[in-house]
């Protein structure tokens, strides 16, 4: 989108308004990606924080070939992956008193979506990280398998297999709704 290109151009030239606009436009999306990957809201917030700091610090070096949204989500995914490797995070189940709030919805829909969100989050947490990451990158960040393969320096067939195994396990978990 040209709006994103203009925003990025203004941001790289030091516009604080452009930075605020980028943040407001993509905050929900990026925290969603990070939470889906890490299943831990505090860790997801840390990743979002770290990402924006490094985004500003490396403004001069940003070279965008594709779209801004995918670029931001890929950076967040990379940081999430680093965090998993560094901390060997144990995904925590959602606290009933601190649910992951879905975006704006009618009250009944909120109740339903909160439950679905909690169940989905729990099921995702039981997948190996590589499978979870591919599912998130493909279904939420809308990357193709070829793009994910290039990002992770692995073959497309490996990516497809991990995706398939991940989705099979997810389906099995969601259909049985087995929550450990």
């Amino acid at each position, binding site marked *: *989108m*040209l*709006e994103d290109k*203009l925003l990025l*151009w*203004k941001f790289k*030239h*030091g*516009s*604080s*308004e452009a*930075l*605020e*606009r980028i*943040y*407001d436009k993509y*905050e*929900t999306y990026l*925290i*969603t990606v990070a*939470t*889906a990957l890490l299943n831990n*809201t505090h860790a*997801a*917030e840390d990743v*979002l*924080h770290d990402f*924006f*700091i490094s*985004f*500003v*610090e490396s*403004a001069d070096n940003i070279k965008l070939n594709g779209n801004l949204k995918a670029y931001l989500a890929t950076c967040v995914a990379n940081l999430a992956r680093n965090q998993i490797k560094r901390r060997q995070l144990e995904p925590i189940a959602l606290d009933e008193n601190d649910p*992951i*709030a*879905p*975006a*704006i919805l009618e009250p009944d829909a909120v109740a339903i979506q909160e439950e*679905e*969100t909690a169940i*989905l*989050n729990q099921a*995702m947490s039981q997948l190996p990280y590589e499978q979870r990451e591919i*599912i*998130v990158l493909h*279904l*939420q960040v809308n990357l193709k398998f070829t793009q994910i393969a290039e990002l992770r320096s692995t073959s497309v067939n490996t990516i497809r297999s991990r995706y398939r195994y991940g*989705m099979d396990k*997810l*389906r099995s978990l*969601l*259909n049985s709704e087995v929550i450990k």
Partner: protein
Amino acid sequence: MKSLKHIQKIVAKFNVKPRSEMRSKVLNEALQIQRKRNQQGVSDTCKWRIIMKTRRTRFAAAVIIGFVVLLPLAYGAAKIVKHFFVDDITVIVKNSDKINTEQDARNAIQEFGKLYREGKAKEVKPGVWAVTLSNGEEFAYSGDNPEWAGLSLDEKNKLLKAQNDEIQKLRETGDFERTFIKEVEENGVKIRLYEDQFTLSSGKVVKMTFGEEQPPK
């Protein structure tokens, strides 16, 4: 039994609402870093030269301008005496014995902002607002967003978020004016540039520029 397609849909629609504190926590720090980088970087004069260098960027200049000048009301011809840089604002002090330090300049900015938000500023020229400060000094402000003068970053963020939410609602209801600016070509693709103008409930007019790629004939 949930099908694969249904599960793909659930995952794609998974959506998390960030905590409200996140915006001020993350953005404040990012903006501070950006400000420091800007101060260490190219001067405003050089920035103008860079902005005006190419035909393409000349158009974008109007939407980039963000620097603000505050000056005591001798904004006619007068010799510049002092120069302060307070947050994002350049204060040029001419013929004043009441603004001598950065704190004086800061106080003047805060008072200007307060008076503006109370509706006590007068637009003496398009885009130039003047007030009389409590110390009797006449102050003029030239630039965008005078309503933000003197606000803390949190206050400014709240105001900006409310403004962005209102713009989004106006866009969804189609309650805005679109003006065609011109057509440009980029890498062989024709792009029509438009400006959308939103009139907020406060009376403030916000303009946003964007472009639409034209399909090849």
